[in-house]
């Protein structure tokens, strides 16, 4: 491969990552506000984003940290919430061409997010340069968005912060509703998850269970029951979150 083609592949990756970057910026902005208003410092919040690059996992981690949860609880909740990345990594490993060496896989894995995976999996195969471009722009957007949200949160009116606090949940709703509308098995899984989650919030005895474990117990139960009742016909990784 010549230097020129590898550069143009890198640029193509950057280009394809821009829309992800813009979407991440706003969600990370909301996370920054959420984490700081919950009680973390802006610098702690930025470090979480820079080291993890995972929206749902980070959102779940904040209450575990602030409630003084155990490291086991945090590790288990991150494992369960981020388990889907394993599926994406398995699938992505089939797409990487011979330019991607073992060492490069360790780097690409760091930013193998839902959206990066979705873009990469739409391609026939992807090379090293393309993947590096594709993970760079979203990573910058995620970290910068968190920083702006974490610091701007201090100077913004309380009402605006309250309003933006719901933004990250709005994104989750935007991810879940369209596939749930199209696939009644996913809808069943969503309803079961919501029912279980509400049980753990409102039933006195169950409400004592720590937040991180609630996410684990409810999601594993809901996904396992749904998988047992309605085996997925094929892996629809493009629809995965």
């Amino acid at each position: 491969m010549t230097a020129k083609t590898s550069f143009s592949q890198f640029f193509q990756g950057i280009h394809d990552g821009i829309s992800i970057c813009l979407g991440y910026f706003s969600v990370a902005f909301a996370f920054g506000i959420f984490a700081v208003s919950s009680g973390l410092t802006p610098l702690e919040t930025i470090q979480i984003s820079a080291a993890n690059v995972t929206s749902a996992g980070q959102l779940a981690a904040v209450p575990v940290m602030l409630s003084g949860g155990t490291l086991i609880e945090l590790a288990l909740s991150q494992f369960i919430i981020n388990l889907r990345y394993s599926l994406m990594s398995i699938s992505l490993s089939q797409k990487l061409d011979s330019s991607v060496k073992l060492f490069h896989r360790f780097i690409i894995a760091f930013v193998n997010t839902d959206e990066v995976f979705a873009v990469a999996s739409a391609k026939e195969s992807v090379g090293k340069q393309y993947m590096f471009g594709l993970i760079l722009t979203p990573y910058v957007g995620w970290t910068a968005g968190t920083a702006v949200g974490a610091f701007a949160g201090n100077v913004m009116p309380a009402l605006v912060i309250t309003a933006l606090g719901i933004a990250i949940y709005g994104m989750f709703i935007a991810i879940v509703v369209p596939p749930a509308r199209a696939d009644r098995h996913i809808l069943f899984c969503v309803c079961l998850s919501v029912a279980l989650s509400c049980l753990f919030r409102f039933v006195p005895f169950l409400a004592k269970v720590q937040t991180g474990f609630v996410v684990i117990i409810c999601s594993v139960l809901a996904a396992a029951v749904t998988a047992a009742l309605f085996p997925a016909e094929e892996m629809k990784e493009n629809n995965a979150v």
Partner: protein
Amino acid sequence: MQYERFLPYLLTMALVTYLVRAIPLVLIRRKIRNQFVLSFLHYMPYAVLSVMTVPAVFFVTNNIISAVAGVAVALVLAFHKKGLLTVAVGASAAVFLAELLLRVL
């Protein structure tokens, strides 16, 4: 939170998140065949996001009424397959307006 207490949390979650991504990408080259595992992994993201959203979303605003307004707008926009950004901004705008109204009334 003291930084000495924060750092173990940060390292733990970063390590787990990274390993979950890296181990399969580095080690596993064959496709998974187990139907149950495939199905489980297929449904998992929706279960996780649903559990995290409900009922927590109803308690992130100052008043549950504004949260309901935000969720309602998000559901309608998402049902019509609007993008992530549109739904997130729409929900925020609904909460903003509802909170303003609640202060006036």
